[in-house]
């Protein structure tokens, strides 16, 4: 049984050794390397954009916090309608920040190619 298997193996090894196929496209290497370079540049600009996104995100957060701190002072002497409008704006900004935090985290730490 084992002998039979060895026969098969040596026969097939000999048979298939001559039918190996090499890459027939002579421009494959150059084409692929240009594609790789494009990929590298895309990736570099992506990382740069991510850094900028984080920068503006923190700037936005700081501005938001300043707004929250100074809003009660501005609201003094204003009508109820104006106060509600300011608070609605703050809530909207907070929701917006929360939504983008999630997006920014997923892009920065769970990048999928």
């Amino acid at each position, binding site marked *: 049984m084992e002998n039979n298997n060895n*026969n*098969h*193996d040596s*026969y*097939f*090894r000999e*048979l*298939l*050794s*001559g*039918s*190996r*196929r*090499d*890459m*027939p*496209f002579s421009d*494959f*290497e150059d*084409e*692929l*390397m240009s*594609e*790789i*370079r494009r*990929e*590298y540049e895309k*990736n570099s600009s992506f990382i740069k954009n991510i850094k900028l996104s984080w920068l503006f995100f923190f700037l936005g957060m700081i501005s938001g916090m300043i707004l929250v701190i100074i809003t009660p002072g501005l609201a003094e002497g204003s009508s109820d309608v104006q106060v509600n409008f300011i608070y609605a704006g703050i809530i909207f900004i907070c929701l917006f920040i929360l939504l983008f935090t999630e997006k920014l985290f997923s892009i920065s730490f769970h990048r999928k*190619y």
Partner: protein
Amino acid sequence: MDELYIRKVLDGDIDAFKYFVHQYKDRAFNLAFSVLKNEFDARDAVQEAYIIAFRKLDKFRGKSKFSTWFFRIVINEALKSSNKYGKEEYIADARTYSVDPGHLEINDVVSRDQQKYFIDKAMKNIPSNEALALTLFYMEEYTIEEIKQLTGWTESKVKVLLHRARKNMYQELNILLSTEKKTLY
């Protein structure tokens, strides 16, 4: 050597990646072709595999050889394309040839070039996963254990596929050779 070039690429020397392209493109193409049975599709699969390997090079931990890791990507890409395009054209039919190596003397019947032609044709006619098993085991000379790692198949699946592949290859070659003999005589 591979480790040195991996380090270079990770340090930003993109041209160092050419080493991997030059070193493994032929074997990668051979593997992809055995699955896809078409030169253009095989080239696309290999190209995609190289791009994935480049993107994920920082995730390569060096637990296995680079070639094993890369060929795994190639096989995955080829099988993915094969499933996407529904490439499986082989239909197992009721041909029941009982042939063993002793009865199939392809070397005596045809010239070396014709032999290559017949083997290519027979490889195209057997299912993709069987052709892949044959390529990995006989052309690339991987062990069953290594094929398991490369394909994610179980040991019994590898053995069954090899058994079927050999049987189907004999069958296909026998049909092709008998047709050739009829044409000659």
